């Protein structure tokens, strides 16, 4: 059981980063991006298609990351161009439509659950060390370090650089940010591109553990949204913690035969529990506010 929980930390680091990408897209450009993991999965499959053809793994990863960044930037530019003045719900609905379209294209190109499992490179699959019966694979520290690095880097970018301050200003008052000369459309497209690139790297990292088919990887959006909810779509450290907790829960559920087949339900349970908990507090506030 402990082995499974430890192994779950590998995915946990990845989930934390996916949640972080959702939070950043929401905070900085006010869009709940349902298409996030579909774009990342397409980038990852561009990479694996190239490695299948004998291209060097690093070069293939670079190509996949660039592809996903460009595709994500294109989606961001379309939203900025045509939906800038619309409500958050409308923009979220647009990304749902894009998710459905990209998943259909991905499954068509790369195959579904039963036919499309690809062999992703797994350079960190070997054990790092063993304590008793517990094996800690290299992927655990790599995944955790990657999650921590990106979280800290994003935090520093937002607070210590001029461009980060502009992004904060943009997220707080988009109209005012524009009238003080902040190039909102360009920054927004930059955020979309960055998020697309990071998502591809995360999908590549977790793909060997999750099976490597397009539908599963594209469907990681439910996990990403659950993690973002733990951080209330705002807090980066809580989002990081939420990812790790979800990874451990998933690992735990995979080790228990009775609930193993319901493993995919874990993110939805987390979402439901969080929704219930937050709405409970709202009711309390409302009653006491009268």
């Amino acid at each position, binding site marked *: 059981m402990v082995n499974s929980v430890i192994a779950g930390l590998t995915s946990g680091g990845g989930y934390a980063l996916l949640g972080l990408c959702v939070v950043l897209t929401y905070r900085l450009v006010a869009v709940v991006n349902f298409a996030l993991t579909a774009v990342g999965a397409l980038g990852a499959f561009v990479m694996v298609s190239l490695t299948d053809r004998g291209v060097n793994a690093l070069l293939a990863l670079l190509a996949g990351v660039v592809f996903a960044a460009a595709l994500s930037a294109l989606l961001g530019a379309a939203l900025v161009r045509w939906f800038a003045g619309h409500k958050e719900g409308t923009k979220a609905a647009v990304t749902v439509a894009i998710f459905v379209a990209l998943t259909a294209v991905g499954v068509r190109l790369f195959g579904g659950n039963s036919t499309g499992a690809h062999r992703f490179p797994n350079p960190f699959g070997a054990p790092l060390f063993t304590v008793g019966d517990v094996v800690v694979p290299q992927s655990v520290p790599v995944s955790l370090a990657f999650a921590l690095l990106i979280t800290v880097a994003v935090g520093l970018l937002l607070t210590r650089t*001029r461009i980060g*301050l*502009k992004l*904060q*200003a943009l997220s*707080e*008052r988009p*109209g*005012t*940010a*524009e*009238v*003080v*000369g*902040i*190039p*909102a*459309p360009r920054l927004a497209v930059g955020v979309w591109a960055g998020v697309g690139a990071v998502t591809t790297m995360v999908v590549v990292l977790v793909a060997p553990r999750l099976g490597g088919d397009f539908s599963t990887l594209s469907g990681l959006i439910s996990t990403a949204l659950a993690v973002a909810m733990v951080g209330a779509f705002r807090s980066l450290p809580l989002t990081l913690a939420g990812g790790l907790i979800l990874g451990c829960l998933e690992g735990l559920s995979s080790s228990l035969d009775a609930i193993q087949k319901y493993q995919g339900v874990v993110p939805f349970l987390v979402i439901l529990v969080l929704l219930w908990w937050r709405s409970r507090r709202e009711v309390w506030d409302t009653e006491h506010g009268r």
Partner: protein
Amino acid sequence: MEAPALALEGVAVDRAEVPVVHDVALEAARGEVTVVLGANGAGKTTLMDGIAGLAQVKSGTVRLAGTAVEKLAPYKRARAGLGYVEQARTTFRTLTVEQNLLVSQRGDGDLATVYRLFPELDKRRGLQAGHLSGGEQQMVVLGRALVSAPKVVLIDEMSLGLAPLVVRRLMTTVGELAGMGIAVVLIEQFANLALDVGTSAHVLRKGRIVFSGPCAELRGDERRLHRLYFGGAPSAGGPRSDGAEPGGATPPAAESEAR
């Protein structure tokens, strides 16, 4: 001849597809304060939003130092030299005072000038703008416009919700901005305060300019201001219900007082 810092010709502005401002022409010269007055709902803020790019200019031209900018995105207008102090103290509340200034700093924009004009802000550089008093927040917004090295600064109702003492202090600063060679366009609820600091004035009624002339002509003349705002004679029982000027089927834009 040097082009005016800001020139509007036949400008019409819509708000949510509803025409609000019609056929407005005005100029703002460098080093002067141009005052725009009008009752609530006259279209003053919509006009400012149109100039800044936050509302759509349906027709007419907006020239900044001779260059047409009405089709540019708001951030491009700002970079072309247009500063906008919006209504309601629009600081970036989670950023510190200094960070608020840094995000809009451009060209020759100098933080030291802002701290010289507003020593209160110098002491609170590291404090989040959301924790400042109303007057200090308005100083941040004015300072933010100043560090963008503007040719023109639009100021919309900066006195809203502020104590009279603070308003007088800020009005002095408006005069100092003009003294730096900036063209200031000032919308203000306290008409006489604005007319004291201004050079020329325009009065908007129902989205049209019904008066253009020197501030001195309106200064202290409450009855005339009232008539220009509402279109009726106050001594005859307040505004007329049809909103027309006395004697007149004449369209407001062509009224004898507009010059």
